[in-house]
């Protein structure tokens, strides 16, 4: 019968092939990314140089001087502070809002499904374009929002142009663009939660708030973590919205890392300082992402039964 012959013809190297297969599968993806590691290491090198394109005679390796200079540079600390503030503010508010909306839309119904797709629209508007939209709407002369706000009596509301409201305005745009992302993740999470624990709780007469905080939220935790991870790290690196809305102003009000680094490079051609700034940002990001991924892996272990 054919079976015997096919067994004979079967490659004996099955075990070896099985060992190699995962590497074969993952290597192309890795290689494509590795290519990007080269610029990364270049950046590390540049960050340790006095390197301004327009002062070529100053070029030289200075070890960590760029970083040491940061320590005494109020502008740098301002950047750190603003970046973190911006990140925590946006992500915090987006989480709250996204969670709220996801809870509102939790029951799968036709209406809720349509609303949830509609609410994705802002996410599909490129942040650069969304900023443009909001700039139009907050234009003090013809902007609809300025007009509406003036009807409410705030005729002097300056949106992104005033230091006291610039952060608020930019955060508002960030919330507008990215809350849908969190919403859709959490909605997916809520909808995939098993029903039985909630039925059990309903039967036991446990109060809604008790259920929400003790059961729903913890069960949603992996989703919340993923959403926070992706958003927080993107938010701390925010560029598009801030650059388009205010270019970092007014004053140094919104000088976050990437805007500062962009200006340092493209306008001041200060490669050393620019890359050093980005390295600091990378370190912060990496540390944060590590914390989150560890936490996420821990939860995953638990749900997969090894906890």
């Amino acid at each position, binding site marked *: 019968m054919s079976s015997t012959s096919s067994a004979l013809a079967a490659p004996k190297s099955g075990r070896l092939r099985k060992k190699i297969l995962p590497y074969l599968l993952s290597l192309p993806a*890795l290689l494509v990314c590795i290519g990007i590691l080269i610029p990364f290491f270049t950046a590390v090198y540049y960050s340790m140089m006095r390197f301004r394109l327009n002062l070529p005679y100053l070029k030289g390796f200075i070890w960590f001087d760029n970083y040491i200079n940061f320590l005494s540079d109020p502008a740098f600390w301002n950047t750190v502070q603003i970046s973190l503030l911006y990140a925590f503010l946006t992500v915090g508010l987006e989480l709250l809002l996204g969670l709220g909306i996801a809870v509102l839309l939790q029951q799968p119904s036709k209406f809720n499904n349509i609303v949830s797709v509609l609410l994705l629209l*802002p996410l*599909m*508007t490129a942040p650069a374009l969304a900023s*443009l939209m909001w700039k*139009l709407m907050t234009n003090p002369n013809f902007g609809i929002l300025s007009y509406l706000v003036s009807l409410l009596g705030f005729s002097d509301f300056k949106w992104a142009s005033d230091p006291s409201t610039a952060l608020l305005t930019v955060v508002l745009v960030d919330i507008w663009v990215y809350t849908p992302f969190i919403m859709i993740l959490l909605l997916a999470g809520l909808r995939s939660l098993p029903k039985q624990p909630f039925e059990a709780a309903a039967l036991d007469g446990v109060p809604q708030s008790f259920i929400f905080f003790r059961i729903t939220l913890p069960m949603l935790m992996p989703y919340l973590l993923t959403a926070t991870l992706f958003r927080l790290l993107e938010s701390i690196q925010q560029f598009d919205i801030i650059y388009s809305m205010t270019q970092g102003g007014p004053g140094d009000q919104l000088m976050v890392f990437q805007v500062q680094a*962009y200006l340092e490079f493209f306008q001041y051609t200060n490669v050393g300082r620019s890359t050093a700034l980005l390295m600091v*940002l990378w370190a912060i990001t990496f540390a944060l992402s590590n914390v989150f991924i560890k936490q996420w892996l821990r939860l995953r272990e638990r749900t997969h039964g090894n906890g």
Partner: protein
Amino acid sequence: MNQLSTSQRVFRGVLLGLVILFFMFPIFWIFLMSFQTNEQILRIPPSIFFEPTLINYQALITGRLETQAGNLDIAFMENLWNSVFLSSSAVLLSLVLGVPAAYAFARYRFRLGEDIAFTILSFRFAPPLLVLLPLTLYFEDIGLSNTYTGLIWVYQLISLPLILWIVRGYFEDISPDIESAYRLAGHSWLQTFLKISIPLARPGIAAAGLLSFIFAWNNFVFALVLASADKQPVTVGALAFVTASGIQYGQIAAGIVLSVTPTLLLALYAQRYLVEGLSLGAVKG
């Protein structure tokens, strides 16, 4: 179940109404704006009553805008095409590279496996400029400056980690027994992968693909720094409406509307996958 009192229902309705208002109003307003002339837009106070005009769309689509300063060439449709081409190529490439890798991480525990996975994922968290700045300094040398290839490669930074992350989790949620069953039926690994694993992971792949498409489409800074005019996507191209002879608000609006349309259509099409695809897998943990 789920018996809500009337007051609860009204409360929910009001909340939902506010949410929809906040998220939809800007889009609605820009939509209206796109049918107005600059003059109408600049009216003070703003008004929602106007005589709609198609000149903005006409200008964008024909690529010619008549102003007092002469005829302006607008490459908007080219930009739109660039966006479509760049985003879909980038996502396709990411899928081709990322889905097998995601499968490997999901199914096999191999030496360095987690490290490789984390390395790829961590690219998602590297500040884009950190990579871009050095790249501008020597993209020229490796012959990738101002090529679609170069851009698509850099776009992998956005799309690949996301696809890997979501699809991996999705594969993990599929019972390996189903794959084993197909192999035991006498099919090779590749056949099994193509006929069983991928079809079963389709919602996850679709959701990941859609999300990364959206992010690729929305990208601004990569294209801004690396692309020359003829390779530029809409995000950068839309800035062209700011001209010395005035800001073409109507066209900006029309441009925004047009640029959102393709992703919206895609999302509508893939909507049922989105929630389903995200609910399993990665995110879930």
